[in-house]
């Protein structure tokens, strides 16, 4: 988290706790890009990601007095944002299309050269996943939730969480290989 020289994270924290609008804006300026990247992983597109970001900041400013300094402030903000994203996903659950899990999906076997894969490309791949896959993928792989926690949070079974994760992983691997294949056709095989 980059900070302007004039404000330390403690200044911002205290200012925001006091409801100082200028400090709130500073905090937003310094943290929003990182938190939007979080939202982008959970939302299907940028528009929804920004909606979640907006809701998340409102919540951060409302709950900032509850932050007691245990764990990093950035980590706390991230958690608030992730919770907002999950909440938003659950709200939209009714409109979701359910993607059936295909049996006997062929596991691709290939090496990965992540250094050549841009974050934006990866983000695009994740956003293209079906909603359920994307949420489970993010919660488990990036945020480190257990399958049990995911099951409770999303109101699904642990088994469903596991199968959605492996499916999401498989799709991502396949897509990454495709992408690499188009760039380095000679290396694949």
């Amino acid at each position, binding site marked *: 988290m980059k900070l302007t020289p004039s404000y330390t994270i403690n200044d911002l924290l205290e200012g925001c706790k006091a409801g100082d609008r200028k400090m709130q804006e500073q905090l937003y300026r310094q943290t929003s890009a990182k938190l939007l*990247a979080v939202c982008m992983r959970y939302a299907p597109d940028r528009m929804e990601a920004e909606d979640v970001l907006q809701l998340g900041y409102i919540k951060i400013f409302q709950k900032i007095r509850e932050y007691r300094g245990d764990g990093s402030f950035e980590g706390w903000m991230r958690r608030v944002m992730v919770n907002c994203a999950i909440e938003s996903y659950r709200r939209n659950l009714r409109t979701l299309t359910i993607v059936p899990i295909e049996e006997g999906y062929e596991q691709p076997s290939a*090496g990965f050269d992540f250094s050549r894969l841009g974050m934006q490309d990866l983000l695009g791949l994740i956003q293209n996943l079906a909603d359920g896959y994307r949420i489970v993928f993010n919660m488990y792989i990036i945020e480190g939730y257990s399958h049990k926690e995911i099951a409770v949070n999303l109101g699904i079974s642990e088994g469903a969480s596991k199968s959605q994760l492996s499916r999401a992983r498989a799709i991502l691997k396949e897509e990454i290989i495709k992408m690499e294949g188009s760039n380095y056709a000679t290396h694949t095989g």
Partner: protein
Amino acid sequence: MQHIRDNEFDQLLRDKFEEAEVRPSVNLWAQIETQLAEKPKRVFPVYWMAAAIAVVAISLGLLLYPEKNAGKRRTDMAVVAEVARHKAAGSHKGAVPSAAEQPEAAMLKVKATGRQAPSGPAVSTAMAMLPDAKSAYAKNNLSAVQPLALNTHLYKNELTVKQEILNLPEPAAPDKEALVLASAAEGNTAGDEVINENDSKGDNKSIRNMGDLINYVVDKVDKSNEKIIQFKTDDDNSSLVALNIGIIRFNTKKHK
């Protein structure tokens, strides 16, 4: 090319997103700021409402509770109530409230024709049989401020007189007395609680003090079992026995 294990794959993805940043749209802060500014407006009226209710409740309590002090700060209303109390104690215990018990009715009588006016619920039934009741009602210059039932006191007809004779063992108060009462009540001809007060609906309770008066008015307005405010009037001290204003609620009757 070697296989990549799931946990390695996961770790690579985690690393990829560890420091990921995406710049939000330029106007997003402005939207957040607007929403932040809206919040207090939505929250405050609730508190203001609660505060207003509390203030109203307290001032009601202060105004209405100390009936013992009525003598010190006499209002027109108090005067009327007082006169009514004397009358009730002195002369009448009949089934139907007499004219004396109803200063307002007496006043109306004087204003209209000077004739003796019948009173009580019997009149209402008689009224229904009168074909010209409506036109007579319209002619009455007090009609604008009086409930219909009150005006029935003004109509003289054989039927009501008969009914009155049947229901009223004692003669109604003499006109002279009525006149005195009328002058006492002159101040409150329109829209005052006293007017509603005398609109008897058949109960035989007389209004002896401020507590009775309030109970009566509340009874008219608030039909629920738990009245908004209720006084105990038997002891002539009019102590507050029940209050039901949203969050402020008590009822001493229930504890007995």
